C-alpha cells in the first residue's frame, strides 16, 4: 500500500510554535483521542483531581522510562476570538515563549533545553496547549516555569514585531504556499455560516497584521487562569507525588472569574455549496465534500459514535468501501476515503475525499461517490462490516496505550473541549454498543447535501 498523499486532505488541525502539523494523520488523532479506554476498563486509567482554585489535574502513570510529559491546556482556542482578532489565540501562544516578570525572553526555552527537555505548544479551535517532555526528576522545574507564565507574562513591542513576522511566515508556509490548504480554508469559511470555526486557526492575514499588545494581553488576562486550565502529566509519576507539586505551583495562583464560552450559533443550512480553487501549482485535480455533522457535544449527539464507526467502514483503510470500490474495483480514483471529526466543542464534520485517475473526470468521480453515499443512506452498513470495524477500533485502543504523548493529548484535548474523562474512558463500550440502525440513522441524518460544501482543486488551465 502506498502512503496516501497529504495534498488531498484538508491540511491543518492545529498550529503551533513549531511544526505540529496533523494533516493526513488527523484521522489517527481523532481515533487515538477517543481511544481513551479499553474494554477491561480504561486504556490510560487516569487519576483525576481538582485544585482549590478550580484547575483540573489528570495523571497517568507509565514508568517505562524515567520521563514525564507535562502539559497545560487552556480552554481557549481560535473559536473564542472576537471580531477583528482572528489569530490572536495562536499569536499569544507564540508570545508565551517570551519573558515574564522575573524571566527574560527566551529564558524558559534555555532552561528546558539545558535540562534535556523538549517543549512545544499548539493551538486549535477549542484549546491551546503547552508541553514539555523531560526527565521525571526535572518535572518541578518545568512546573514552576509553566505556572509562572500562566500569570506573569510580559510582552514588549521588541518581542511582538519579529514574532508577527514569524507568524506571517508560518501562515505563508502552511496555507498560502499550499493550494490544498487554501481550498480547505475557503471550504471551512463556506461550511460554517456563523460559527467561529469558519475562521482559520492561524487567523486571516490582515488580522494578524493588526493585532496589538493591548488586545493580546486582554485576551491573555481573560482566558489564562487556573480555573480555565487543565494540567496533564503522563509518565513516571504517581498522582500523590504530583498533587504536592501541583498545589505548590499551580495551586498558589488565585482563581479568576469563571470563563464562559459564548460563541456565535450556527443557523440551519439550506443550500449545498461548492468551492472551486484553481491554481497553476496543481498538477492533479482532487475532490472533497464536507458535511456539518453532529459531534459528541453538538447537535444530535447520539449520532457521534455511530458516525465514528461509519467513517472507519466507509473510508478507514484499503479494505474500506470507498477505496475498494473507487480505487481498486472501478479504477476511477488514485485515492479515496472518508473521515469524521467529532472531537470538538462545536459542530463536527464528516469528510469524503478522492483524487481521479488519469482520464477520469471529476464529474464521474463525484457521481460514483454520491452513489456510495446514497447506498449508505438507504441500506446502511452490514453486520459483518460493523463487527470488523469494532474489532479494529477496540484494538486501536490497546495500541494507543503504547505512547506517552498520545495519552496526554487524548485526555487533555477531551477535557479541554468539555468531554469528561469518564466518557473518554468509556469509549470502547460506546463503540461496542453502536448498532446497525444507529449507523443507518446517523448516516441518513448527516448526509444531507444542503449541509455540505463540495471543494474542487483544479489545475489553472481547467478554470
Amino acid at each position, binding site marked *: 500500500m502506498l502512503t496516501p498523499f497529504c495534498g488531498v486532505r484538508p491540511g491543518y488541525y492545529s498550529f503551533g510554535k513549531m511544526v505540529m502539523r496533523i494533516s493526513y494523520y488527523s484521522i489517527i488523532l481523532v481515533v487515538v483521542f477517543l481511544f481513551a479506554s479499553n474494554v477491561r476498563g480504561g486504556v490510560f486509567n487516569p487519576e483525576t483531581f481538582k485544585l482549590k482554585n478550580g484547575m483540573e489535574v489528570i495523571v497517568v502513570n507509565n514508568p*517505562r522510562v524515567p520521563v514525564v510529559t507535562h502539559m497545560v491546556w487552556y480552554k481557549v482556542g481560535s473559536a473564542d476570538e472576537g471580531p477583528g482578532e482572528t489569530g490572536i489565540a495562536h499569536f499569544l501562544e507564540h508570545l508565551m515563549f517570551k519573558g515574564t516578570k522575573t524571566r527574560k525572553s527566551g529564558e524558559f526555552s534555555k532552561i*528546558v533545553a539545558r535540562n534535556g527537555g523538549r517543549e512545544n505548544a499548539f493551538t486549535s479551535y477549542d484549546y491551546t496547549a503547552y508541553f514539555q517532555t523531560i526527565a521525571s526528576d526535572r518535572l518541578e522545574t518545568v512546573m514552576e516555569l509553566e505556572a509562572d507564565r500562566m500569570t506573569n507574562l510580559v510582552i514588549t513591542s521588541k518581542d511582538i514585531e519579529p514574532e508577527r513576522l514569524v507568524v*506571517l*511566515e508560518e501562515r*505563508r508556509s502552511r496555507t498560502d504556499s499550499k493550494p490544498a490548504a487554501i481550498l480547505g480554508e475557503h471550504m471551512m469559511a463556506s461550511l460554517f455560516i456563523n460559527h467561529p470555526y469558519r475562521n482559520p486557526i492561524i487567523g486571516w492575514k490582515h488580522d494578524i497584521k493588526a493585532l496589538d499588545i493591548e488586545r493580546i494581553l486582554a485576551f491573555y488576562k481573560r482566558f489564562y487562569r487556573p480555573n480555565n486550565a487543565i494540567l496533564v502529566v503522563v509518565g513516571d509519576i504517581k498522582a500523590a507525588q504530583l498533587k504536592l507539586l501541583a498545589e505548590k505551583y499551580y495551586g498558589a495562583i488565585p482563581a479568576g472569574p469563571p470563563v464562559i464560552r459564548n460563541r456565535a450559533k450556527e443557523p440551519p443550512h439550506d443550500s449545498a455549496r461548492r468551492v472551486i480553487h484553481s491554481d497553476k501549482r496543481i498538477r492533479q485535480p482532487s475532490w472533497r465534500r464536507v458535511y456539518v455533522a453532529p459531534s459528541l457535544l453538538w447537535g444530535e449527539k447520539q449520532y457521534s459514535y455511530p458516525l465514528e464507526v461509519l467513517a472507519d467502514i466507509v473510508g478507514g*483503510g484499503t479494505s474500506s468501501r470507498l477505496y475498494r470500490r473507487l480505487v*481498486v474495483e472501478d479504477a476511477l480514483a488514485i485515492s479515496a476515503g472518508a473521515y469524521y471529526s467529532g472531537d470538538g466543542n462545536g459542530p463536527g464534520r464528516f469528510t469524503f475525499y478522492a483524487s481521479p485517475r488519469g482520464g477520469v473526470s471529476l464529474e464521474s468521480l463525484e457521481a460514483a461517490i454520491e452513489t456510495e453515499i446514497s447506498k449508505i443512506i438507504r441500506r446502511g452498513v452490514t453486520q459483518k462490516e460493523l463487527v470488523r470495524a469494532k474489532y479494529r477500533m477496540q484494538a486501536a485502543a*490497546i495500541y494507543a496505550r503504547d505512547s506517552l504523548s498520545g495519552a496526554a493529548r487524548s485526555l487533555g484535548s477531551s477535557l479541554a473541549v468539555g468531554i469528561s474523562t469518564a466518557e473518554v474512558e468509556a469509549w470502547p463500550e460506546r463503540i461496542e454498543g453502536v448498532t446497525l440502525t444507529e449507523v443507518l440513522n446517523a448516516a441518513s441524518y448527516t448526509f444531507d447535501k444542503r449541509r455540505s460544501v463540495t471543494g474542487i482543486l483544479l489545475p489553472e488551465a481547467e478554470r
Partner: protein
Amino acid sequence: MKCVFGLCLAFYFLAVPAWGNSIRTERVVSPGGIEAWLIRDHRNPIISFRFAFRGGSALDPPGKGGLAAMVSSLLDEGAGKFDSMAFQKTLEDKAIHLGFESEKDSFSGHLQTLTRNREEAFRMLKLALTVPRFDTEPVERIRAQILIALKRKKEDPHTLAANALFRSLFPNHPYGQPTDGSKNTVEKISIKDMKDFIRKRFGRDNLVVAAVGDTTPDVLSRLLDETFLGLPARAASWELAKVDPVFSGKTQLIKKDIPQSTIMFADYGLTRGSPDFYAALVMQHILGGGGFTSRLYSEVREKRGLAYSVYSSLYPFVASGLTIGSAGTANERVAKTLEVIQTEWKRMATMGINESEVTDAKRHLTGSFPLRFSSSGRIARMLVGMQLFNLGIDYFEKRNSYIESVTSNDVKRVVKKLLNTRGLTIVVVGRPVGISIHN
C-alpha cells in the same frame, strides 16, 4: 522529523538520544542462526517488530530508479493465496499493521500486532517477503499512485529543493538520485524487475531484526526461523562506492511563483562511524539543532522574524556524510535570511564556540536521550538503526558517555574540519528578490 529527499533515516533516532539504563537489550539468536535484538515489555499486549535489509534505493539499477520504493509499496498488496484485497482485509480484520519502506541505504519493514494475533501476523509477513504476488491490478494501481505523487512533487518546493541539492552534491553517484525515481524510470519498472529485487536483495546475511514488547526470547526465536529461514542465506553481492559530496559553494535558483521561498543548504558532514561524529553532533546542536535555542533559531527567527522554521543537522550515510539545513521565508527576505545564515556559519568557523554553549549542548543531548523511548515502535526503530550503523548492543548504556567525553577541543577541531568558510551550497525555490545566482 526532518525528512529530506526520502531520508528520514534511523539517524534521526540515533543522533540525538543517549542513555538507557532501565532498558535491557537482549540478543536472541534462533536455531537457524537469525539474530534479533529484543526489549521485553509485558505491560501492554502488543509486539512491535522491525527489520531491515542493508542496501536501499541507492542500489536501484540504472534506469530503474524508484524500484526499491515501488517494491516497498507492493509487498503488502497480495502474497501466497491472498490477492491484494484479501491480503489487506486479513491484516485489517486482525488489526495487524504491516508496512515497508525504502531509504537510500536500507530496505525495512515493520509489523505491529496484538499478542493474540501474533502467529497470523508473522505468517502474513512471511508471505509478503517470500511469495509476494505482484498481480497486474495492484502493480498498475500503485504505479499510477506513484506517478501522480511524482507529478505533485514537481510543485512541492521542498522536494524540488532537495532533489536539486542532492543532484549537485552527488553528480555521479546514486545518492544524487531521488529514492522514488522519476516518471521515466517508474514507467519502466517491470514485474520481473520487482521479482528480481526480492530474490537478490532479501538475503539473511543482509538482515537486521528488532522486537519490542510482549514476547519472549523463545517465542521470538521460533518466529525468526519461521519468518526468515525461507529467504536465501546470501543476498546478491553489491557494492556502493564511497563518495565525497561536491560542494560548489554556489546558490542555485529554481523559479516558482510562490509567496514564500524554500531555502535548502548543505555543507560538510560525517559518516555515522566517524570518530568525530559526537563532537559534530554537539557542534550542530549549537549551530542549528532542534528546540528553540540554536544560533540559527535565535538569529534568523527569534531576533529578526525571518522564518518560521530554520535548522541544520547532520545527515550521515553509509558511504558519505553531509550537513543539511533549511529555512522558508518571504521572497523579499531571502537575501537577508541567506546573509544571516552564512554569517552564523562564518562566525562559528572563525570565532568558535563558548565553553558554556558546549556544556549546555551536552546537557541537552544527554538529558533528552530517554525522551526517545516514547513508544515501542520507536524503540524498535532505534534497535534496527543501531544494528545498521554497527553501534553495538550496549549503545543505550554507552551513548551518553560518548557525548560526555566530547571536549571543547574536539568541538574546535570539528568546527575547523566541517564548517566551510567558502560558502554554503544552496538551492532556493521561489521568486527571491536581490540574491546572486550561479545557475
